[in-house]
């Protein structure tokens, strides 16, 4: 027996409905000289939307406290894999570790928002009739996210605000650096996050984003990671068909990433009876 063993290499697949399937098309594309990622087709995108829709009632119906706990758990799991992510991100070691730490901190920051966003963004409205009038922000439904090029921090910054409020999402990972996204899916899969709340596709943005933008069962669209202005415009135009909420990179401030995918529900309740 030789002392040298053959290393077991990971096949990077998609993350749909809590499972790790290959693309239904069977395709993959080269990411580095030695590594490939699955190249999702529009049918994978459709399946991911179905999975996200199925997960929505349970996730949006969970208590805000529970969603916060799960996000915090995601942060814990990510912290535990700090070195692995730093390896995968590459570049100078110190910067890579800083990136991972920033991603963990961002998750914790959004986890804390889970039971506060309604208090901050909701209102008790003064009305000129005997009613108690309350407005509270509610999740819109399924959100399609085109993740920014920054492979880990960008992804976390896009996904955490979408799901913390109770939405479910389909994410198109950064096209040139998709591998940390799939490793991040392993973190999600071990964090008690119900299957289908986050679905991650790798592949060509131009092949996936237009289908998600036009999909009638998608309620929100985050175009932060779209690389060309023409593509962003086309997606925004397609999104009008069913009045999707659209977020573009320019609007990335404070709680905006959360409120972009919430809609206000106002309740009138008779007072003084």
């Amino acid at each position, binding site marked *: 027996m030789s002392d040298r063993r053959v290393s077991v290499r990971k096949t990077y697949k998609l993350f749909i409905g809590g499972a790790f399937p290959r693309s239904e098309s069977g395709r993959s594309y080269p990411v580095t000289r030695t590594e490939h990622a699955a190249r999702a087709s529009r049918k994978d995108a*459709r399946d991911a939307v179905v999975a996200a829709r199925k997960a929505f009632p349970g996730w949006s119906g969970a208590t805000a406290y529970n969603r916060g706990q799960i996000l915090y758990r995601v942060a814990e799991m990510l912290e535990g894999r700090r070195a692995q992510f730093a390896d995968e991100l590459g570049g100078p070691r110190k910067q890579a570790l800083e990136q991972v730490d920033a991603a963990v901190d961002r998750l914790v920051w959004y986890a804390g928002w889970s039971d506060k966003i309604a208090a901050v963004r909701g209102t008790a409205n003064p009305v000129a009739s005997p009613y108690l009038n309350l407005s509270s922000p509610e999740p819109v439904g399924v959100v399609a996210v085109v993740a920014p090029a920054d492979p880990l921090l960008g992804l976390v910054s896009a996904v955490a605000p979408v799901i913390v409020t109770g939405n479910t999402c389909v994410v198109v990972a950064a096209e040139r650096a998709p591998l940390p996204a799939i490793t991040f899916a392993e973190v999600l899969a071990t964090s008690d996050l119900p299957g289908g709340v986050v679905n991650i596709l790798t592949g060509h943005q131009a092949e996936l984003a237009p*289908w998600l933008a*036009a999909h*009638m*069962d*998608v309620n929100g669209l985050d175009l932060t990671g779209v690389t060309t202005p023409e593509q962003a415009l086309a997606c925004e135009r397609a999104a009008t068909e*069913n009045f999707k909420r659209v977020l573009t990179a320019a609007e990335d401030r404070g709680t905006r990433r959360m409120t972009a995918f919430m809609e206000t529900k106002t309740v009138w309740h008779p007072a003084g009876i």
Partner: protein
Amino acid sequence: MSVATTPLADVASSEAALRAFLHGLPGVDRVGADQRAAMLGTRSIKTTAKARAIDLAISMVDLTTLEGADTRGKVRAMCAKALRPGGDASRVAAVCVYPDLVAVAAEALRGSGVKVASVATAFPSGRSSLDVKVADTAFAVAAGADEIDMVIDRGAFLSGDYLKVYEEIVAVKAACGEAHLKVILETGELVTYDNVRRASWLAMLAGADFIKTSTGKVSPAATLPVTLIMLEAVRDFRDRTGRQVGVKPAGGIRTTKDAIKNLVLVQETAGADWLTPDWFRLGASSLLNDLLMQREKLATGRYAGPDYFTLD
């Protein structure tokens, strides 16, 4: 249709003759049937062919509601959907309800060409006396049912009491009068594919106009291999007797893909003669919305969402 002039005429003359005939049928190659069904299920049907298949499938749907919670209002809403499923899609083949709601459906569908089907004979278990089953059937027919979906007595069938099953089907067929009789085999309870083949022949010998896989209350319901075996049976039965019998898979067919797999199976097993709503039906409820969504996708080029179709 010409009636049997072959030795089949007297196979039901006695318990022994019936048993000898049914057990004399060739056995089903289980692995072969599974593989053939799976292989036919991989066939790729795209673009214009897919559009045609979707429209054909819509025209074959028996839109069904068989819940304890069914109301007159729900049946009326379902009938409205049967007449105008959505967009410019054609009407479906029939609606299928419990006997007490037949009158409501018949009223809503009068003159439209959409048939009213009713389950009967102590559906879904079939556990009652023959008198009750016949009365159940007669009640549904009197209320205006064009088609009766009866269940066989699986207990009798599994204990080898074939003549009892045969005579019940004959009695219910007589109670149907003009109405068409669909015989539900409940294949999920028949255990083996050999039994599916035997039950298919038994039902056809007794005078079934259609053989149907399942009640929808038992899982597994309409699997592809079972539908394949039943399609082989109707094909062989017509070769032997000249009488054509229809097939209706029901239960568990929820997606357009499932429906198209069934159509491929019909084409490749029984042949194009069966590819009409007169000879092939799909018993379903949620399937219709999926067919409509796929239809919309082909028409608009974007994926459709359930928000834009009726709830049922």
